[in-house]
């Protein structure tokens, strides 16, 4: 307090802020919000200036400032929306039907529009919107998200008028608690807003194939499934950072069932199947498994693993860097 010249100054400042919040006019809300709605026009305008190579100095300045203006107007729009909510929260302003409809509809509309434009970008190529209209995707995401949140806030602000929700009852004496409640509600709304703004990501996740999820190891599983008998035993690598899918027996078993899986972590000269299949893979740093033709043994699990003796080893199928072997360890 002292660094501001004593408590009086702070009190005056707080009173002044309170007064200005109390006097917040509906027109200020509408004008600020409308200016925010128009911000993408600045990007389009700037783009036209660059494309047409025009040299009006005033237009250049406005165009050059479009990014900063967007940020400033974004902060103003969100602050106004929150202050407006704060006022209706403390019964200082009455919800104006026209303003609420305007804000909620336009907020919802810009959310949909932004998402539609982002969709166009995704369907074409990165930077499509910028190279055609001067619109930037990162700003569109923030733009649409802000629209959705402010629209939701506007709708929430009108509900106390005629429903069981009655913010008026939440009196000023619960000021701090009111802030907690308001903060909690806002965080929930923001959380919901993330769903709307990130819908394209959800669609991306839903469209992933097994190959997208499990990577190249899924191809190895597929080869094993296509090339080995369903009653066979398959030796798989030990689950590790290098073998996250093929080494993960519950995952691999889903695709290879009813084949029996034998893990490299448990195979030894004392514990091995009579015969089995495995896929030999050449990787840039090492091959799996290590086959020693001279000693007639195979090491399935890195340096400390035992070299397991075999009787016969036949190639069943091969490509450039993969082979399926059938190995016989002992006579039945």
């Amino acid at each position, binding site marked *: 307090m002292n660094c501001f010249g004593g408590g009086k100054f702070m009190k005056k400042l707080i009173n002044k802020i309170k007064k200005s919040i109390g006097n917040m006019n509906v027109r200020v809300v509408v004008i600020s919000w409308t200016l925010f709605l128009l911000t993408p026009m600045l990007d389009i305008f700037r783009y036209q200036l660059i494309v047409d190579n025009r040299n009006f100095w005033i237009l250049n300045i406005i165009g050059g400032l479009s990014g900063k203006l967007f940020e400033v107007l974004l902060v103003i729009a969100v602050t106004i929306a929150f202050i407006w909510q704060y006022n209706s929260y403390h019964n200082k302003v009455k919800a104006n039907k026209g303003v609420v409809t305007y804000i909620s509809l336009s907020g919802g509309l810009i959310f949909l529009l932004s998402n539609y434009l982002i969709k166009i970008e995704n369907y074409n190529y990165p930077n499509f919107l910028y190279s055609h209209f001067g619109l930037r995707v990162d700003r569109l995401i923030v733009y649409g998200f802000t629209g959705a949140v402010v629209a939701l806030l506007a709708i929430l602000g009108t509900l106390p008028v005629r429903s069981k929700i009655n913010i008026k*009852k939440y009196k000023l004496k619960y000021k701090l608690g009111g802030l907690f409640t308001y903060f909690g509600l806002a*965080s929930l709304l923001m959380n919901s807003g993330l769903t709307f703004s990130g819908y394209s990501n959800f669609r991306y996740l839903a469209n992933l194939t097994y190959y997208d999820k499990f990577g190249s190891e899924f191809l190895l599983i597929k080869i094993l499934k296509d090339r080995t008998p369903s009653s066979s035993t398959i030796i798989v690598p030990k689950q590790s950072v290098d073998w996250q899918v093929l080494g993960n027996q519950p995952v691999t078993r889903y695709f290879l069932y009813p084949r029996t899986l034998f893990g490299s972590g448990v195979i030894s000269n004392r514990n091995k199947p009579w015969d089995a299949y495995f896929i030999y893979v050449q990787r840039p740093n090492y091959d799996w498994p290590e086959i020693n033709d001279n000693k007639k043994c195979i090491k399935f699990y890195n340096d400390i693993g035992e070299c397991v003796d075999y009787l016969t080893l036949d190639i069943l199928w091969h490509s450039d860097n993969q082979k399926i072997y059938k190995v016989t360890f002992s006579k039945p």
Partner: protein
Amino acid sequence: MKQLILILIGLVIFTDIFLLVSERSNNISWLFWQIITVFSGLWTANKVFRLKKNNETEDLVWWKWGMLVTLATTICVASLSLAFNKKSLDWDSVALYASRANFLKSEIKFSQMLEFSKYDDLNSYYYLLYPPYTTILHYVWDMTNTSLPPAIFYSSFLMIIMLGIYLIEKSDLGGYGALILGIVTISSNQIFGLSFFEYTNLPYTVYVVLGILLIKKYIQSGYVVYAWAGVYLFCSSQAIRFSEPALGVLLCTSALCFWITKSKPYLLITFLTIFMGGSRFLSWSIFTDQIAHLPNFTNITTVSLLEAIVGGFIGSLANYSAIFVKAFYPTIVATVAAILSPLTGKVANNSEIIFIKMFLTITVVFYFCGFYLLSFSTFWWRSALSESLMRSTIYLIPLSGYILIKNVSR
């Protein structure tokens, strides 16, 4: 509401009977507890079936109501459309639920599934990590020979939770309040993001949330049938995700509330939780221990307990707390806001609000302490914390939302 609760109870009874019949075990103690869980389900269903319809009506402005209903429907349809277009199953489903359904089709019993891990040094416990609820639903789905992806039935739980919240809460929060709570729940990034994944988290959340809301309704109204239905649904969540500490949380909450207030409703909730939760806990524990011989996969020893206590003084707790909050964000924000928000004059004496606040607090404490202990006994605690904590605790969103909306209600 009655029909919805009956469907949820019916699904649990069906899976319980399925397990009973498919196992054909002669282990008397398991049979006893499994039959007790089935009968408690049938008893609850009977009580719910006799529930009288509430004819209360509320004047709502049609366009506002319509707008909110349209929004809720859009969210549910969006989730269904994502599920409908799914190209593949998700990791947990591939590794566990759909896999076990495949084994069931080959007439392999649940208790025999651990045999598959005989030649696996890392996943010996995996096939009995969770009870069979979703696996049986996968099995039934596959038996219908439909070409539709099973993600659709997971997605339908989004509609169930929306409908459930609306139907249970409309008499308490009002039509708009209940709709907003439902919309905030289904549109939350975590819940919607899980709705088209074949994970157990959403079905689990449905049972926990609707269970707690029904228990709250019992505290409000005094109708015992809500207590039965609420506790049964809540305890049934253990038939989906057994390793979650939900039963302990409810037991502590109701016992503490009774200890503080000496109010009879809390005593009934405590007894019902001990009875229904206990029978479910015992039936699955006996099944995994005596019939399937599931090996222990966590190793909390005296040394790890001592380490945890010492760790509290040498900085491990502070480091862990930062990781915990990061993994729990943003659910923790709404939860803490709901816990700290004060009660208005009228609501201040409402014991149901105190009950839910207590439930939220104890949940956070349980998960905090549980993962703290786990951090000294397993190497995978960090990945479990970052991946599953958020998914396991999404039920805190609607419950926190209830408190926050109630705070601004009449």
